[in-house]
């Protein structure tokens, strides 16, 4: 379970990288589309949301939304559950922190649709979430020895069954 916990934490960090990448990919595509004479308004944008993108990179916006609002929260919940079984001291606190940051990230992302400054905080919070997720995974390895020195349940369990 330690490995599962650690892997989930790293997957979340990679998820943040993915989010940043697809967003910039989409914005770059939008820039090219406009430079080439394309015009964007609400009618055109929303039609893209309905599955008919104006330019190929627009899929980046959709991926960002789906990954951010569906996949990332599920991963954060799984991380929290894994933390309970990981037998890493303080793991659940860090996992809870990741979950809170993911929730905050969604709130800021959506709030940015009406208040642009909150969109800027969405960018800042992304880096905080990335760092916390990365540290949450990294500290498992660095604290591995300390935890193993404790009279841990697995060895006790083996003794019990033998």
């Amino acid at each position, binding site marked *: 379970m330690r490995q599962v916990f650690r892997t989930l934490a790293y997957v979340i960090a990679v998820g943040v990288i993915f989010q940043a990448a697809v967003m910039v990919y989409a914005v770059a595509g939008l820039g090219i589309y406009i430079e080439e004479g394309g015009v964007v308004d609400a009618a055109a944008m929303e039609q893209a949301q309905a599955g008919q993108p104006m330019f190929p990179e627009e899929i980046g916006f959709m991926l960002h939304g789906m990954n951010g609002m569906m996949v990332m929260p599920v991963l954060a919940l799984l991380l929290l559950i894994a933390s309970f079984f990981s037998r890493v001291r303080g793991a659940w606190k860090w996992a809870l922190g990741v979950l809170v940051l993911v929730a905050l990230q969604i709130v800021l992302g*959506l709030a940015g649709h*009406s208040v642009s400054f909150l969109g800027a905080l969405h960018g800042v919070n992304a880096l905080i979430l990335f760092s916390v997720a990365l540290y949450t995974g990294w500290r498992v390895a660095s604290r591995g020895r300390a935890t193993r020195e404790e009279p841990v349940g697995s060895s006790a369990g083996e*003794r019990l069954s033998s």
Partner: protein
Amino acid sequence: MSPTTARAVRPALVRRVVACAAAAAVVVPVALFWNASRLPAQYSITQMGSVEPGSGPRLPGQLAHEAHGHGTAGGAGTISVANLVEDRSGPADVSVTLTARSERVELTPGVEIDAYTVNGTTPGPTLRATQGDLVEVTFVNESVPDGATLHWHGMDVPNSADGVAGVTQDAVPAGGTFTYRFVAEDAGTYWYHSHQVSHQQVRKGLLGAVVVEPAPAAPEVVGPEVAELLRDAVDVPAVVHQFGAHRTVQGATGDTAVEVAPGQAARVRVVNSDNGALPVWVSGAPFRLLAIDGTDVHAPTEVRDQAVLVPAGGRADLLVVAPDDGTAARVELGGSAAVVVGPADARGEPTRRPAVTLDPLDYGDPASLGLDPSAATRTFEYTIGRRPGFVDGHPGMQWTINGRTFPDVPMFLVREGDVVRMTIDNRSGEAHPMHLHGHHVVVLSRDGLAATGSPWWVDSLEVGQGERYEVAFVADNPGIWMDHCHNLPHATEGLVAHLMYEGTTTPYLLGKATVNQPE
């Protein structure tokens, strides 16, 4: 077991139990929410949501609903939507066949798309009638795989002709036909589109315009000057639809030329068939906003350097006069397409969207509403929000209506003859073009600011984030009517409620086990 081992075992066991309990505390509520959100394989819209009788007197349907938890509204004296048909019999004044087909369409040389056509084109033919005509449309679904319907967007048709799959009819399967009969009661610009898997079928072009000409011209509404211009104005239906990067007007990309002599007028009937608001402005000439959602504006004054925002599903009729100097006026449709009004070889200079957007709240002259909002017999709240949760098992940030997600959304129960006031309050972070079927609603105020212009009658109202509109209407068209967001993907995500007249039932069912998926 030695004492040492026992001491080691107990914390291990405790730890494991605590871990399981903590995991359960996370998983169980999520699983319960997920399971509770799943829709039955088939259900009736009359069993959906919770009855909101508003502030008015209690209705029998509400009592039945309370007694049985769910149920049809009203016990004795119920009427099926299938029987809410056009009263007028006899031969139709306008009789057409509209055939829907799944086929490839060439938008512009070299650009082909998969589309749904009506009589071979998208948009389909413009249905023209004169006010008071009895219209009969034979709808043939030749090859639309999921089945299809026709909804008469903005027209107050009898409920059985409203075209909502699973509510007022079953979706017409490929090879099937369905007949719509209704009287074109109100003059104006409307449109038809499929209301089966509509987020997909409308996007792919299963739609067209409806133009109802007034029986006599109405100079008392628009004023003598405009009536004079209208007398020889060219009538231009302009269904705007976005196919990927291509904005089309009546199916054609780029500029659409409308040839008129200098000084002659064109009535450009803009229909926004997309899912977001469309800004429209005019380059090279002033214009008048003649009608909104089909209803004429009283005393439409000349407008310069302002854009008109046409909500998704909404219409705006612009009166544009070709300049006397022989140049053309351009009706800019978001800047990526235009209707060019002028002599044959004239071209206009495109302009940017003006910074100011016309506010219908104080445009034109006030006139009688034909209803007294202060004597409302029922008031409703329609508050749109957003929160994390599940809809039909799908996780995400879900739209809420009055705090609850689909299908636990309000059923606005009315009695025929009610004067209804409804407050639409958008706290969801996104704009929503709200569309009530079968009724025209009049805007009373926005954010507390009363409407002072021409009566602003709508069927598709853009409610921006943070905005609060108060509208009123008369419940004069019995049936079951959807009241939903016309950003159709939002409707699929559950931003759909309905207005229900007491004592109405429907034999049609919704759900995965049926053919009907209205959104």
